[in-house]
């Protein structure tokens, strides 16, 4: 079953075509990788899906509903959560509060309930804290729940961002370079974490430069170059596609 469909997506920045007529599908319960050299337009595709950019052309459908140009927060509520390439935590809020922020859109207490701390509000808050502690546990950060987001180590910050995204009950999780800045050991942990996320029934779409990680976790790959799609299909085929190899050669060949 198709969870996400991107059709004829085009995004232009002041005359520069960042993404040119890209189409692909993401099937439910799969892990899909978006690859390509720097500046290929991968993050721009992500930002169009998450509603941060409004594409000039094309349609994005999630679970059959058109989400093109919808506000980012509404897209999260529909079940698409994301992490950022340049980590965007709330640095002066605790790890737990960062995850609670991700839980926010699933909480229902209204303005007056919040002001007066009604019993229903307290119950909801308590349940939310438990759920968010579970998410911290899931990524292995529960012992740091009271630490400020900005005080965590780099790899931990990436994990915290994933926990924050998971707290919003996503069906599709979009990870922008999750292994960026991680050491080998942390990357190995991330591979294992991604498979555990998938076991929860969350579909994953990720951008990653570390090809070893990509080949370990992704079933399907989509390759972009200069904003255009050059190959898509199962991981092994795309990896051996001559166009993809040419696109990467001389740019980043040591990563292969």
């Amino acid at each position: 079953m198709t969870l996400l469909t991107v059709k004829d997506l085009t995004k232009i920045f002041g005359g520069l075509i960042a993404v040119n007529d890209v189409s692909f599908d993401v099937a439910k319960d799969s892990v899909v990788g978006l690859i390509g050299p720097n500046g290929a337009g991968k993050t721009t595709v992500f930002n169009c899906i998450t509603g941060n950019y409004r594409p000039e052309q094309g349609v994005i459908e999630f679970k059959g509903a058109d989400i093109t140009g919808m506000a980012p927060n509404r897209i999260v509520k529909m079940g698409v959560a994301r992490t950022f390439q340049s980590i965007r935590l709330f640095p002066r809020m605790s790890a737990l509060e960062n995850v609670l922020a991700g839980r926010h859109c699933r909480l229902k207490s209204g303005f007056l309930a919040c002001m007066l701390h009604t019993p229903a509000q307290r119950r909801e808050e308590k349940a939310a804290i438990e759920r968010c502690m579970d998410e911290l546990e899931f990524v292995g950060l529960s012992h740091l729940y009271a630490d400020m987001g900005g005080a965590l180590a780099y790899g931990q910050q990436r994990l915290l961002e994933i926990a924050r995204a998971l707290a919003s009950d996503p069906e599709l999780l979009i990870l922008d370079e999750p292994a960026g800045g991680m050491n080998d050991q942390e990357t190995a942990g991330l591979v294992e974490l991604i498979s555990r996320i998938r076991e929860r029934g969350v579909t994953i779409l990720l951008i990653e430069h570390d090809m070893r990680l990509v080949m370990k976790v992704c079933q399907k790959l989509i390759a972009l170059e200069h904003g255009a799609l050059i190959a898509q299909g199962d991981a092994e085929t795309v990896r051996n596609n001559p166009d993809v190899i040419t696109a990467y050669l001389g740019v980043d060949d040591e990563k292969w």
Partner: protein
Amino acid sequence: MEQFFQQLFNGLAVGGIYALVALGYTMVYGVLKLINFAHGDLFTIGSYLGLTMLVSWNLSGLLPPFLGMLVVFVMVSLFVALIGWALERAAYRPLRNASRLSAVVSALGASIFFENAIMLVYGARVYVYPDFLRPDFVLNIFGVAIPAMRIIVITVTVALMFGLWGFIQRTKMGAAIRAVALDQGAARLMGINVDRVISLVFLIGPALGGAAGLLIGVYYGQIDFTMGWNYGLKAFTAAILGGIGNIPGAMLGGFLLGVTEAFAAAYIAVAWKDAVAFLALILILIIRPTGILGERTADKL
């Protein structure tokens, strides 16, 4: 028709003064991405310093009138430039790497500081520029009587703008300013001394602002210590109108705002004159925040 041309020239004269102040906002914004809220008060300092030199030091009496004015003009610009330079060193440079809003708050603090410093030094009353400075003859242009003062102000402001434009476009230092405005990091890598460029901008902008302060004193004849906010906001509106960070934009915006205001005062109501300018500001920010000449840039996520 007579009134139309009268108001047009009045608007152009005031607009030229706005444009001079707007240049200071726009240049600082260009290199630091900071709204220098204290700039309006530097303008006020210019008009007070000018008054002191003209009246207390009697510079206009000691020298022949034209030469005296010229000396005062240069000295005011120099003094205000030095204050601007010191302001950057004390209040903005320590915050270069802090969040942008910290610098904005610091700028507000500087503005409050300057305004009250002027009040403490000069007292909280309105000052009047000596009358004899204003040439009272009237030029007859195509049958329309235009006071010479307006023509002089327009000429001086346009001359200063052309001077600045030449400096920015033709000299090596001007190129360095343009480079820093485009990309500070890259400019530094190309061997440009960014700190020196920023200091230079904080000399030029306030110098023009101080000169504008002197002109407004001569033109309207009346100054008070709170006027920096009002003219500052108008000039800032002009800078936004033309596209902040854009030098020709500030000039265009200044003239446009001055003329709009003059016409609004003449044809709508004088009492709403200031409201028109602020309404214009709000509308531009809603409809086209990049201004007339500004270019749209994508937010980097």
